[in-house]
Structures are given as C-alpha cells and as structure tokens.
C-alpha cells in the first residue's frame, strides 16, 4: 500500500525522525490558515505548496487546467491562494502518472527549509528496501540528492553506497556513523545524521515498510538533518498489525475496478488487451495471459479467483471483465485440484444465466478433478460457451475468437 507524503511524514514523526513540518489541506481556506500558522512558527514568509498524489515527478509536472507545477514555493499569502487554487482539484500530469494525470484532492503546505545560516545547505538521497538476494534490508544512499536516483545509478554508480543490516538486530552504531561519514558530514550535522538514520531504520522495520525513500535528505544551513520529501510503501501482508496505517489507504488513488474486485476477494489488474481472462492461481493466471498473446490476442486483465471458484466469484469476475468495452472474448482457465471442475462449471452456467446475454464469446477450459463431467455440463447447457480440457485446445479457441 502506498502512502501520501503527508501521511508518511506523520508516521515518521512518531519515530522521532525530523521532517519538514506542514499541514495537509483540502481547501484554499485551509491552505491560507496553514500558511499563517507556519509563518508564525518559523518567522519566515516563505512556504511550500506540494500536490499530494501517489506519483513522483511532481515538481516538474504541471496541472492541466492551470499550468501550475505540482510543487511551488510561495513568498506570501497571495501566492499561497493562487497556488492552492491552481493545484487543488486539478489534474496533475507528471512523468510517472501518464498523460491522463491524477486528480489532486489534497495539498501539503509546508515550511521552507532552504533558509540561510552558518553552514552550506546540502541535498542527499537515502532509501531503505529489501535486498531479495541477500535476504536483508539494505540502506542505499548517495551525496547526489534531489535528483532521479536511477540516473545517478546509471551515470555515476560509484556515488551510490549500500549498507546491509543484519536481520538479527537494529542498525548498528558503526553503520550509522559510516553513512554520515560517507555523506561528508561533521560536527552537529554528523550527530544529527546518525540519529536520523538510526530512527529512520526503526521506522522502516516498525511500520513494516516495503520501501522507504527520502529524497532529498536535507542538511539545512543550521546543520539540521530533515526529511524534505518521503515516499513510503507498506507491506500489504503486514497491514493486519497496523490498523492505524491501514486506515490511511486512499482508494481514490487506485483503479476503481481493482478496488471493486478486491471487495469480492478477487485479485484483478487492468490491462489494455482484447481478451479477458479468469484463472485460479497467480502463476497460471500469468501463464494464461502469455498464452493469449501467443494465440494472437492481447490480455485485457490479470484475474486470480483464488481457491474458491464458485458461482458468486465467477459472476463478479464476469461483471468486472465486461466493464471493459475492448474485451472481444473471455477465457476461463481453471485447474481443479481441491475444487471440483463440475462445480466450477455449474457456477459458470449459473453466473451466465444471472447476467443474461453475454455479448462476447466465452471459452471455458476446465482441467483436473471431474473435468469430463464439467465439459459435458457446459456442452449441454445450451449457452454460447465453448469448452476445452487441454490448454492447447483453449489456445486454439482463443486464436479463432480473435481472428
């Protein structure tokens, strides 16, 4: 599950990780109020307005309707009003959103951290994620902050450092010091960085993050170390023990069809093709999509119905797939192990009858327990459903359907 920047920062504060302070606002009025508070607290008339969407590249992206960038520095209250009006409710298009963009429902009005002071300001990069090969969490960091880390990795790989953390304990002191040294810090900034990194790692583990990225990790002119931006992803499997975090889910950021499928316990991902599919098991579902492509079609979706392919799940699956006008045929591929094929077939027939006339050809491939009985049920149902037992037969039927 992805979180918004403002939500991630709230969570980091609970782990004593210093963040750029601010207020999440849904209206222009709230933004103006937030600005007044920030101005009172910081004494500076500068503040930053940041669009809250689940995609990066906001600063360079533009809101379609107003032409304003997704991140703006305001010098006074009038600019706050202008930017809030221009961003809130608008559609922000960034390199990560695609041309359709994403509607901005909230903005973060935050203090400006780029104030003057005795030392030089610096932007670093730091992220924590799982290294699947080493089976350990790894901290990746670089002196080259504020820019696209993929570019840094490509152009100057020597500027990216990695620190693996032993699964038996927390981040050790020597590791935190090493990170601060490698970032070229000394004095107060060094001490602040050691604390920052130690607490950040605790947050990563404590919150069951899948990925935690701070870019830029900022050294202010008074040697404070601060998370100016934060991208946080939470392991879906761990949400059961973080009810407060689970409640932060913003379904408006997700595909509405995928949300609906989730409500029916279906695992659905929308794709751009012309052949819908419904399969039991994630691996077989991906393999079925591949087979559709090899047969001359393009998969319209990924849909894993899991271990319980009954009339209700099949009906829900049909309805979700049929929402897509590009679908020219639907392939149901079930390998019945514990679940019996004749029961799945009965479910398909029942679901078909409940929905009424389905406008596209349906191909049902049922293999495994009671496959022959299932084929007979389908063939004798009188419905416009073609049946197959072998996967190669199903592939041939798909080929005919899309020809």
């Amino acid at each position, binding site marked *: 599950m992805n979180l918004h920047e403002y939500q991630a920062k709230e969570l980091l504060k609970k782990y004593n990780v210093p963040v750029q302070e601010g207020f999440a606002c849904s209206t222009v009025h709230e933004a103006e109020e937030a600005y007044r508070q920030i101005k009172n607290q910081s004494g500076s008339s500068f503040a930053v307005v940041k669009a809250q969407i689940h995609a990066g590249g906001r600063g360079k992206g533009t809101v379609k309707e107003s032409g304003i960038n997704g991140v703006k520095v305001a010098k006074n209250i009038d600019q706050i009003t202008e930017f809030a009006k221009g961003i809130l409710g608008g559609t922000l298009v960034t390199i990560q959103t695609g041309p359709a963009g994403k509607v901005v429902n909230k903005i973060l009005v935050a203090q400006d951290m780029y104030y003057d002071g005795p030392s030089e300001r610096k932007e670093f990069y730091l992220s924590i994620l*799982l290294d699947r090969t080493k089976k350990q969490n790894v901290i990746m960091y670089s002196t080259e902050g504020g820019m696209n880390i993929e570019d840094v990795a490509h152009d100057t790989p020597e500027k990216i450092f990695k620190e693996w953390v032993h699964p*038996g304990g927390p981040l050790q002191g020597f590791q935190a010091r090493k990170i601060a040294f490698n970032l070229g810090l000394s004095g107060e900034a060094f001490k602040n960085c050691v604390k920052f990194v130690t607490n950040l790692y605790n947050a990563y583990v404590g919150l069951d993050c899948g990925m935690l990225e701070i870019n830029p990790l900022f050294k202010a002119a008074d040697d404070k170390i601060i998370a100016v931006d934060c991208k946080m992803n939470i392991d879906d499997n761990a949400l059961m023990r973080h009810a407060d975090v689970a409640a932060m889910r913003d379904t408006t950021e997700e595909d509405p069809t995928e949300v609906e499928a989730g409500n029916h316990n279906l695992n659905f991902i929308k794709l751009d093709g012309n052949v819908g599919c419904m399969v039991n098991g*994630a*691996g077989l579902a*991906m393999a079925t*999509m*591949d087979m559709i492509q090899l047969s001359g079609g393009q998969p319209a979706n990924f849909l894993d119905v899991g271990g319980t392919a009954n009339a209700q799940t099949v009906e829900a699956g049909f309805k979700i797939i049929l929402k897509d006008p590009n679908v020219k045929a639907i392939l149901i591929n079930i390998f019945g192990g514990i679940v019996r094929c004749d029961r799945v077939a009965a479910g398909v027939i029942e679901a078909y009858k409940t929905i009424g006339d389905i406008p596209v050809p349906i191909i049902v491939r049922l293999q495994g327990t009671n496959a022959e009985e299932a084929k007979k049920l389908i063939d004798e149902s009188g419905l416009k459903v073609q049946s197959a037992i072998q996967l190669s037969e199903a592939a041939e039927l798909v080929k005919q359907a899309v020809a």
Partner: protein
Amino acid sequence: MSILVNKNSKVIVQGFTGTEGTFHATQMIEYGTNLVGGVTPGKGGTTHLDRPVFNTVEEAVQKAGANVSIIFVPPAFAADAIMEAANAGIELVVCITEGIPVQDMVKAKNYLVGTNTRLIGPNCPGVITAGECKVGIMPGFVFKQGRIGIVSKSGTLTYEAADQVAKAGLGVSTAVGIGGDPIIGTTTKEALELFMNDPETDAVVMIGEIGGGMEAEAARWYKENAKKPVVGFIAGQTAPPGRRMGHAGAIIGGAEDTAEAKMKIMAECGINVVASPADIGKTMAAVLGK
C-alpha cells in the same frame, strides 16, 4: 528415494486442528502420507483424526519421532511456527501459509542459518513424491508416478505441468512448489541441485515467474553442472512493470526481473525454454526422445 520426502517421512501438521489443517491433513492421510500427529498449542494430550495432538513441536519430535512438518497457521504466527520447528530439529519444514509479512520472513530465514532445517515456501503448494508421500495441498491424483522432477514458484501451474507430463506418457518423481514470496526457504537452484543428484529423476521441469533473480541463478548453476535435461517456462511475459501479479514476489523491478530476460539467460545456459505453457509436456517428451 526421489527428493525431500518419501514413504518413511514422519510428518506432523502445525495448525492441526484448524479448518485448513484438518481438511488437508485428511487428504494427506488418504494419499498415504505417514502423518504421525500434529501441533496445536493448548490442545496437547487430545487426539484429532485418530492421531495425537501436541502442545509443542519439540514434544512431537520426542514422542512421535517427527522429522517433517507442514504449517497451516495464520500469517501473523507463521514465522514463529517456522522457527519453532527449526528449534525442535525438524529436517524439512513446508510452510503453506500465504500472506506472511516480509520482515517476519527476513527474521525466520536468518533464524534458519546454521540449523539443519530446510524450509520450503512459504506461500506454496508443498512437496509431493508421487505415490509415496504428499506434504502439501496439491491434488494427488494429478501426479502420476515417474521420473520427471518439477520445481515451480506457482501452485496451479505445477499441477498443469504434472498433468501435461502425464499426458505425454511420462510421470513425476517429486514435485516441489517453492512459493511465490520475495523471501522463501528453498530456491530454484537448490531444488534443481537436489534433482540433478537424485538417481530416480531423469529430467526436470523448471517453472518460474517474473521478479527476483532465482531463475537466472539456477540457470547459471545448471550451465556448469548439467547432468540431465531441463525444460523451463517463465510466467509473466505479458505482465506490466511495477505491478504485483498476485504473488507478493511477482513484480518487475529491474532489467533481469522480466520474463524475457530470464528466458534468454535460461536458453543461453542450455535449458529448453518453452514460450507457451501449453508446450511443457510435449517438449519434455521430445527432449527425452519419447
């Protein structure tokens, strides 16, 4: 003896008396698995399915001589169950549970270092040695006895492969579902190595999917250690990058994560790669000249 399990394996079920545990324990007993009991904390001393229930895995090892365990406990407690089994000296732990938090598995995986315990899974269908012993949730009848080994990240795709192998006039020695999570116990390469050294296996079907580097690792090992033919398939040629395709580990992050990249590496290492999942069985028959 095929690999991992056989008719002499003494199997216990962790999460024995729950719905899942009860259902699949019954199925395993029907298949002929030597199921010697189960563990449900707090229900020790009772019997279930005519077999003793123990409070701890340690007790099951001492009193019933268990050396294999299958885990059906809920996700929040599954990593703990794995560590308990390892601590009690269980040689093979098969964890079926789906949805274990990744950080829990990081800990459990580390806990296994230096022990004699091998973990299969989690989020897997288990292990079956055809005709002898089923430690999993797969439909037993699909696995006709024979001399083909199967290692796979996916459940139903394993059944598909076993079925096609049977239709091609061949059969299965052992099938291992290693699971689709980011952190798992036994890797593709480790299972492949076991098959290469198994006198009762003549050839191997290796099924992978997008995400992670296990297939490439297995292929590179195979290039140096090939003794028997391998037929390979990678699911997810049409999967979009950055999306989790059902399995927690099935996500394209980097360049070597894609099906295309994995299939290329596998082919270069001498594996017979099939593009369509419908061709697994007939390709195996062709490779073996049958």
